[in-house]
């Protein structure tokens, strides 16, 4: 461990440096040689931007709690099935509708399937869908947002396309995609993976618009700032301008859009399963567990509450992590 006083001193020094440079300090190795800042940064005492972000992130108590919980959920669904080895789809008709017991810690459903195993299995699918669909949506959204904010000529066509997508009714579009591609995909890759790809693409391709609009707005504002002008005056090419100066500065709205996107994706997936457009019925997902249990909610409330808790907890923790990251990455509020 580094000495506490030493660390504080270095942090302060770094903060002063950053304020002077007016842009996030980049990683030392990635810097082009003609950047004067780099000479300062190559001193052994310097640290990367990400370590800096992490230092800031640790101060955000909510985000830290959320990170621990989220890691817990991820471990639960990934490592869990290796410890609790009951098959999530095994029907044990004699053990129907049981409440919490040693044999079934979280009880069983109407067909005697173990709820703990189903929650683990369902979490794998739901988390994978949420994260992947979010990645697709955010990548697509920020790409389109940056392009349309940065290049005036692309702005109108890209934004009209965004509006077009916003106006598209989601459900008929998904219906069409499922009808057209479900069978070929499940033949090529098996019913599980095929449906997974179809669903994440479908959700990703229909939820990037908000991110694109937010990012475009931010880029438009950023473009008029002095440091951009300065970068341009020393001849920074467009691509580098985007990756070095624009993207890091719009990272915070992207993060927020991403965290919200995970929640939307998990919920959209459950709605799709409900319509028979999602995964086959023998693939439990949190959304499906929730919908399956709604009818008997009065008698077996835990079957609704448990998947509900997992969905809300995931969404909440991811939101908090996003919030913490946003604060940590924004140099203007760093150190507060």
């Amino acid at each position, binding site marked *: 461990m580094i000495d506490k006083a030493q660390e504080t001193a270095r942090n302060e020094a770094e903060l002063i440096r950053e304020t002077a440079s007016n842009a996030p300090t980049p990683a030392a190795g990635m810097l082009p040689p003609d950047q004067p800042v780099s000479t300062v940064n190559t001193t052994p005492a310097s640290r990367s931007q990400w370590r800096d972000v992490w230092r800031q992130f640790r101060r955000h108590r909510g985000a830290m709690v959320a990170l621990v919980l989220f890691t817990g959920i991820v471990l639960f669904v990934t490592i869990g099935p290796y410890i609790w080895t009951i098959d999530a789809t095994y*029907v044990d008709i004699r053990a129907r*509708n049981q409440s919490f017991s040693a044999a079934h810690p979280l009880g069983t459903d109407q*067909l005697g*399937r173990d709820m703990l195993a189903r929650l683990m299995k369902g979490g794998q699918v739901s988390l994978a869908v949420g994260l992947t669909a979010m990645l697709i949506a955010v990548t697509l959204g920020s790409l389109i947002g940056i392009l349309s904010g940065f290049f005036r000529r692309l702005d109108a066509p890209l934004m009209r396309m965004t509006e077009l997508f916003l106006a598209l009714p989601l459900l008929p579009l998904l*219906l069409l995609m499922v*009808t057209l591609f479900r*069978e070929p995909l499940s033949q090529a890759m098996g019913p599980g993976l095929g449906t997974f790809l179809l669903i994440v693409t479908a959700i990703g391709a229909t939820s990037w618009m908000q991110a694109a609009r937010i990012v475009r707005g931010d880029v438009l504002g950023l473009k008029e700032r002095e440091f951009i002008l300065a970068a341009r005056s020393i001849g920074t090419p467009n691509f580098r301008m985007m990756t070095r100066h624009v993207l890091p500065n719009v990272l915070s709205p992207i993060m927020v859009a991403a965290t919200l996107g995970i929640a939307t994706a998990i919920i959209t997936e459950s709605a799709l399963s409900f319509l*028979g457009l999602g995964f086959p*019925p023998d693939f439990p997902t949190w959304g499906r567990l929730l919908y399956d249990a709604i009818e008997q909610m009065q008698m077996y409330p835990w079957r609704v509450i448990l998947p509900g808790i997992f969905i809300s907890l995931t969404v909440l923790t991811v939101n908090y992590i996003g919030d913490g990251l946003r604060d940590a990455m924004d140099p203007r509020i760093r150190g507060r």
Partner: protein
Amino acid sequence: MNTRALLLAGAAVTAFSSAAHAERGAQGQLNMIFWQAPSTLNLYLSTGTKDITAASLVLEPLANFDAKGDLVAKLAAEIPTLENGGVAQDGKSITWKLKDGVKWSDGTPLTAEDVKFTAEYCMDESGGCAQAAKFTGISSVEVVDPLTVKINFTEARPYPYSAFVGGQAPIIQKAQFQDCTGERAPTCTQQNFGPIGTGPFRVTAFRTNDVATFEANPEYREADKPAFATVNLKGGGDSAGAARAVLETGEYDYAWNMQLAPETMGQMVAAGRGDFPTAFGAQVEHIFLNLTDPSPQLPEGERSTVAHPHPILSDIKVRQALSKAIDRQLLTEIGYGETGRATCDVINAPEAFASNTQDCMAQDIEGAKALLDEAGWTVGGDGIREKDGRKLQLLFQTSVNPVRQDYQALIKQWWAEIGVGTELKTVDAAVYFGTDPGSPDTINKFYADVEMFTDVYEGTDPGTFLAERACSKIPAPSNQWQGENTGRYCDPAYDALIDEMGETSDPARRAELAKQMNAMLTTQSMAMLPLTWRGRVSAVSNSLAGFEMNPWDTELWNVADWTRAQ
């Protein structure tokens, strides 16, 4: 406190119960809830049971089926039969006599012209009548005199009671609808939402897919009926909510068409405010085995056609094994509880036609394994049987429905025990039961090995239903995938029985033929695996008397006799 006041009032009213009974409109409002809201009251423009049921408050046919499946005269003076001369000896016509003095709710008399007009209205080719099936095979409808109408058939018909019989084919008023025929039919909103009828109630307001209100018809032919002055028909919500409104909160007297988990129903009945009357008619949940090859490797237009027999399911031993592995009683108990009965038969009712086969009831996993061994399917490394390099792997599709998904999960597990791999698939009901020839997921296209749905027939005679399994009714690209023979069963001996059934009018012989055909479809060929005989279920409050659950006709068939329980 409110409850107590109600109870006191109830006790007070009991004293006057006999007096209150004998007067039209003396018992206030009847509250009904339809969780699928009626969209129109002109049932000739809608196939929805919700619309047919709602319309039966207003419109009446010549005859209804009663709860036992027997015909009862409504607007007809009597049921025409061979004995009373109403049905012609050659079976080519039927003559109905109307009751004398029946008036429409606007005060004008009902005549044979109205009956003739109704047939023309529905048989108009450009109108797209939703109940056209009721009117097929009719060559003409003649008005003999103002109270007599004769229906001529194109060929001899052993069972002539289809047009104007049952809630799907009531009489509409000529004066009101004469400008609404053919293509203009859907544009006549005022007429379609407010038909003038002869029934116990007349429409006061109809808001499509929402609320409808009715009041007692002042011209109704029985002076002391109906007992209720008004009817409030609320639409929307879901099945469970509607059941709660009747059985738990008591806001409504009657909720139509319940689909609830057995446990939920038991809990609601325990509240003691009402019950779920169930009647068993012609609804049977079946598994259909595809006898043709649905393989996607085949070119489009050849998949699931008779040109390619199914590589696995063409072997009757495999079909028998699949049937033996299923525990029908357990399935039914879990999925339907009191509202279903395990069955091995396609035809379970009416009584005379039922075979009561029992030999599929006991689950026999070992027997099923032995059959598959015999057929040459050996267990492979992953527990799934193989033969000649082909895995015994089936695609099992059905509609999105919690009960059906439970069935799928259970059946998948049993089949896994005998070494049959199952891939499950669910399709949205609107697509699955849809008729779009372009969709790959309809029950008729059957691009799967196994599918499950409820098959049902209209009326009480299964003749036309059994005729649906004819070779000529197999869906194929050549008929736009429109045949009803979903399982692609084809047997010339069965077709011969269909022909015989078409010429037989003796009820005893018809029943015998039906049993024989039922056996051919089930135990002999295993082309269809009946699972559960489903009842029709509604929720009825204890405060309603006179309700008689009817599986053969609209549930409101005797709404004129409903009263407030005292």
